[in-house]
C-alpha cells in the first residue's frame, strides 16, 4: 500500500498525543522521536496472531484496529481502536508471553509504534520517559476500569446509548455483529436498539 513516510511528518500529531498524558517540552519530545517508527497494514490483516509475543506499543494515526479473543468458537471483541487510540496486546507486551488476543485491521491502518527494546532503552536513557510511561499506564488503567465498570453496571440499553452518543460514526465503520460483541449485546437486541439513534450524515 502506501510508501513508508518519515515519522517526522506525524511529529505534531504525536506531540499532541503525548501532551494528553503529561506536559513535556518540545526538546524532551525530540529525544523520543528516534525511538518511534511508522507501520502500515492493509484492511482485514492480522497484525498480531494468537500465540505471538507482542513487540509494539502503538497509536493509530489512521484507520481502525479490532482486538478480539476466540472463545469456544466465538469471537469476542475487546477493543475498537481508531485515530488517536492506543492498541496492543498489553499482557503479552508487558509479560513477554504469547498473546491470547488477536489484533486485526478493519480498515487500512497507519500506526506510530515503539518496539519493546526501544521502550526499554528510552526508559534508561531519557529522563522524562519513566514519568511519561507511568502516566500512560495510568491512563490505560483508568480507561480499562471504566470499560469494565460500564459493562458490569449498566444495562444493555444504557451501554448502547452511551457508546453511540460518544462514537456516532462507528455504526458506519464497523460491522454490526462486531459492535454488538464489543458492547456485549446480542445481535438481535442490537438491531432492535438501532432505531434509538438516527444515522449520522457525513458532510
Amino acid at each position, binding site marked *: 500500500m502506501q510508501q513508508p513516510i518519515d515519522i517526522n511528518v506525524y511529529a505534531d500529531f504525536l506531540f499532541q498525543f503525548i501532551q494528553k498524558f503529561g506536559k513535556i517540552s518540545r526538546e524532551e519530545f525530540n529525544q523520543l522521536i528516534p525511538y518511534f517508527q511508522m507501520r502500515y497494514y492493509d484492511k482485514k490483516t492480522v497484525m498480531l496472531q494468537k500465540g505471538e509475543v507482542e513487540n509494539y506499543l502503538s497509536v493509530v494515526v489512521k484507520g481502525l484496529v479490532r482486538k478480539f479473543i476466540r472463545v469456544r468458537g466465538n469471537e469476542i471483541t475487546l477493543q475498537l481502536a481508531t485515530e488517536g487510540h492506543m492498541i496492543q496486546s498489553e499482557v503479552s507486551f508487558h509479560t513477554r508471553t504469547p498473546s491470547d488476543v488477536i489484533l486485526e485491521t478493519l480498515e487500512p491502518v497507519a500506526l506510530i509504534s515503539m518496539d519493546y527494546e526501544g521502550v526499554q532503552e528510552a526508559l534508561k536513557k531519557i529522563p522524562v520517559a519513566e514519568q511519561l*510511561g507511568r502516566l500512560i499506564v495510568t491512563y490505560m488503567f483508568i480507561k480499562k476500569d471504566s470499560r469494565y465498570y460500564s459493562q458490569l453496571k449498566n444495562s444493555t440499553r444504557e451501554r448502547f446509548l452511551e457508546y453511540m452518543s460518544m462514537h456516532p460514526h462507528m455504526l458506519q465503520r464497523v460491522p454490526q455483529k462486531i459492535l454488538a460483541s464489543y458492547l456485549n449485546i446480542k445481535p438481535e437486541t442490537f438491531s432492535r436498539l438501532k432505531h434509538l439513534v438516527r444515522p449520522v450524515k457525513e458532510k
Partner: protein
Amino acid sequence: MLEDFEKYLSKYVELTPEEFSTLSSLVEIRNYDKRLRLIDIGEEEQYLNFIVKGLVRKYFYKGRNEIITQIAKEGDVINSSVSFLSGAPSTYVVETIEPTTFISVSKHSIDKLYTLDTKWQRAGRLITTDLLMQKEYWELDRLKYTTKERFVRFLTTNGDLFQRVPQKYLASYLNIQPETFSRLKHFLRKKFAETNI
C-alpha cells in the same frame, strides 16, 4: 511490619536503606475493625493501602446488589484506584471483611516521592502496570473459562480464601450465581473424596 512492605516493593525496584527510610517516614499505619469502610462512594481516594494483616473487599452497587471486583489479603494492595489516580469521586466502596492493619501511603506523599528521584517514578510505573495486568487477566479469565473452570482455578490458587471469605462474596467476585456456587462446592468435595482414598 514494614519488612513485608519492603519485600513487596523489592519486586519492582531495589531500594537503598536510605531510600526505604525516606519512604518509612512518609507511611501511616492504619488499623480498621471488621466491616468498616475505608472509602465510600463519592469520596476522593487519598491512599494506596498495603495489607499487613487482614482481609478487604472492593465493590460497587448495581441497584441494591453489591458487585465485588477485588478481594485482597496480606501482601496485596487495595484502594479505589481510579479515584486515586484520576482524582474523580470514587464509584467504589473499599471495606474490611476482617480486622485489618494497613501500611498506607497518601497521594501527597507519593507525589513528593516522585519529585525526589526517577526511581520512584519507576516504582509507580511498574506497580500501575501490574495493576493493569491484574485487570486484564481478570477480564480474560472471565471470557476464557467456564463458570466451573473459574471456580476450580480460584480454588487451586486461593484455597485459603475459601475458608476466610463468606461464600456470597466469593460468588459475587467470581460472577457465579450463589446456588451454582454451592452446587460446585459439593460437586468438588465429592470428587475430591473419590480421588483421594
